[in-house]
């Protein structure tokens, strides 16, 4: 009976979690299939293996065919989402339970916190309120460069900064009132 070694299973109970996959990356994860007895096992391939997101390649790790590795390469696409893949290991002799579940979370190379609504909440009239947005370059070799910063109101009109005009296209610390 083979064993699968990889990340800690999470969902379903025997799923292998690949963790975060950044959308500008193309990582390869290696799963291993080992025979726990002296009898060899042959891993012929995986099925299906025609997915545009997941692609698997099977290679033997030793001459007596007791250990195999399955390299799964992910082309994650651009949309942040949870991706899952189920495939069956084709083995000789055939195994009763050879289904592998993979799941991963695609993330953008740029992360923004807060990611959703920026809430100012209740603000007393005549008082200012300050909030902060943090932008982090998680996985791009290109430098993060904030440009063309602007605010558009509910009617679609651009709210012009009234202070330092450099803040309309800030590349360095600038302030607008």
């Amino acid at each position, binding site marked *: 009976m083979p064993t699968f070694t990889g990340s800690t299973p999470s969902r379903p109970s025997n799923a292998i979690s690949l963790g975060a996959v950044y*959308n*500008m990356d193309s990582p390869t994860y290696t799963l291993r299939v080992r025979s726990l007895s002296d009898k060899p096992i042959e891993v012929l391939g995986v099925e299906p293996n025609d997915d545009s997101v997941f692609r698997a390649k099977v290679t033997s790790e030793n001459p007596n065919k007791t250990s195999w590795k399955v390299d799964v390469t992910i082309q994650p696409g*651009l949309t942040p989402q949870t991706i899952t893949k189920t495939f069956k290991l084709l083995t000789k002799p055939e195994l009763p339970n050879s289904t592998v579940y993979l799941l991963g979370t695609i993330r*953008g*190379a*740029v992360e*923004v916190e*807060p990611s*959703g*609504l*920026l*809430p*100012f*909440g*209740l*603000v*007393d*009239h*005549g*008082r*200012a*309120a*300050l*909030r*902060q*947005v*943090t*932008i*982090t*370059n998680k996985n*791009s070799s*290109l*430098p*993060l*460069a*904030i*440009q*063309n*910063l*602007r*605010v*558009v*109101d*509910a009617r679609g009109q651009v*709210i012009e*900064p009234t202070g330092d005009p450099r*803040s309309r296209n*800030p*590349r*360095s*610390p*600038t*302030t*607008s*009132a």
Partner: protein
Amino acid sequence: MTVLETKPGQEAKISIELRDTMPAGPGNARISFETGIPAGPATVAIPASWIVR
């Protein structure tokens, strides 16, 4: 708004001030900017809301 590159090329912080001259009542706006990283995403838009009382 103030942009501060806390880790140049890696991290930036934008401070957004709701001015004290905002009229009473609810309001909302969309803050947008470009990141310089294609598909990173290249453009980010963040909705903001408030109620001045």
